């Protein structure tokens, strides 16, 4: 599905992965272009989150290859993958992401602090996100003092604060009501586009997937690309 002229930013080539006797991915293929917002859909247990984790270098496939920005990443050691995740990727998950002991602004600044930015400039950069995401005045709150939608926007700010090249979002609105979920999605996509971040989004909700540029369906561990009017590979 890629032509030779377009180099995908991130790519899974024929990857398989089993958990014990249970195959989760069976020859999954996916190529995502720089700046694209892609939704990975599929029924529960289809392997969509496993695919996301393989692309992000969190899981290592049993066979096949994962490429990011011209480099094969599945064969890297854990330290190198961890650096890659910290420096070039951002993450938003469904819940339980904020460190409860830290204030909201410290949570947002975390990726910068871990990347070696000094505390004062890191917090300053973090604060800029509060106004952008409609979180003014909540900088000093701890996660227990935030609503679900506020906490998810803080997590989103943290995912984007270091201007990652790829934002991985696994069911980012799964724990929110539909109106709050739509606000989060709309902010997520707008902020990612503004800074040119590629988004790989796992969701089972069509209304969330509709914020993406295109969607693929994972079914029985393989990826189907859907194009309206015809069915691709």
């Amino acid at each position, binding site marked *: 599905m890629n032509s030779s002229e377009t180099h995908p930013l991130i790519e899974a080539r024929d990857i398989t992965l089993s958990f014990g006797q249970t195959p989760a991915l069976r020859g999954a293929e996916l190529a995502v272009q720089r700046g694209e917002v892609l939704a990975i859909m599929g029924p529960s247990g289809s392997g969509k989150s496993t695919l996301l984790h393989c692309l992000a270098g969190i899981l290592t496939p049993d066979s096949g290859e994962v490429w990011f920005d011209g480099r094969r990443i599945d064969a890297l050691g854990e330290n190198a993958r961890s650096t890659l995740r910290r420096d070039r990727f951002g993450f938003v998950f469904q819940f339980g992401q904020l460190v409860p002991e830290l204030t909201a602004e410290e949570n947002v600044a975390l990726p910068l602090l871990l990347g070696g930015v000094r505390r004062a400039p890191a917090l300053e950069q973090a604060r800029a996100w509060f106004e952008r995401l409609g979180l003014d005045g909540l900088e000093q709150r701890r996660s227990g003092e935030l609503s679900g939608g506020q906490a998810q926007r803080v997590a989103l700010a943290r995912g984007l604060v270091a201007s990652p090249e790829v934002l991985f979002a696994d069911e980012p609105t799964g724990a929110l009501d539909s109106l709050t979920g739509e606000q989060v999605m709309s902010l997520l996509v707008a902020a990612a586009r503004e800074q040119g971040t590629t988004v790989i989004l796992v969701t089972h909700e*069509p209304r969330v997937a509709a*914020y993406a540029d295109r969607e693929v*369906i994972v079914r029985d561990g393989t990826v189907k690309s*859907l194009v309206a009017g015809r069915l691709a590979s």
Partner: protein
Amino acid sequence: MSVPLTLLGLLEREPSHGYDLKRDYDAFFGKGKPLPFGQVYATLGRLARDGKVVVGDVEPGSGPDRKRYVITDTGATEFESWLVEPVEAEPHLQTLLFTKVVLALMLGRDAEAYLDTQRAAHLQRMRELTAVKRDGGLVDALLADHGLFHLESDLRWIDLTAARLDALAAEVARP
């Protein structure tokens, strides 16, 4: 969309010229399908004949747009009862989608591929409506949401049907 009742509703706000009614209808309800002037005046003519509107002040000049239409008690009562009546909860059991899936299975065609293509078409439309919500005002968003929820319920049906295709194929097969 019921044009006569919608026009009655617009007249319930205030007496209006045909031109104003068309403008407001197109702005709120037309959405890419403007109401032809001919239909506006024909509808107003029928409403007048049936005693649901009357022509109020006729302004000097010529042409149909010098007439100002006023809703009558009969018109207001009819509009009111229409407005509060719930829309029929149509189960849509015999949709084209359903017919195509069953026919594909009966004929041994690839029903799953059909459902995938349909899913892609639905998601494409959902993306367009999501863009309308992003770029438009609240009225546009309200209308887009209505479409989105309907498309989403179709998609749930598509997913569930896709998961049951083998069993369905067995059920529609000839003995």
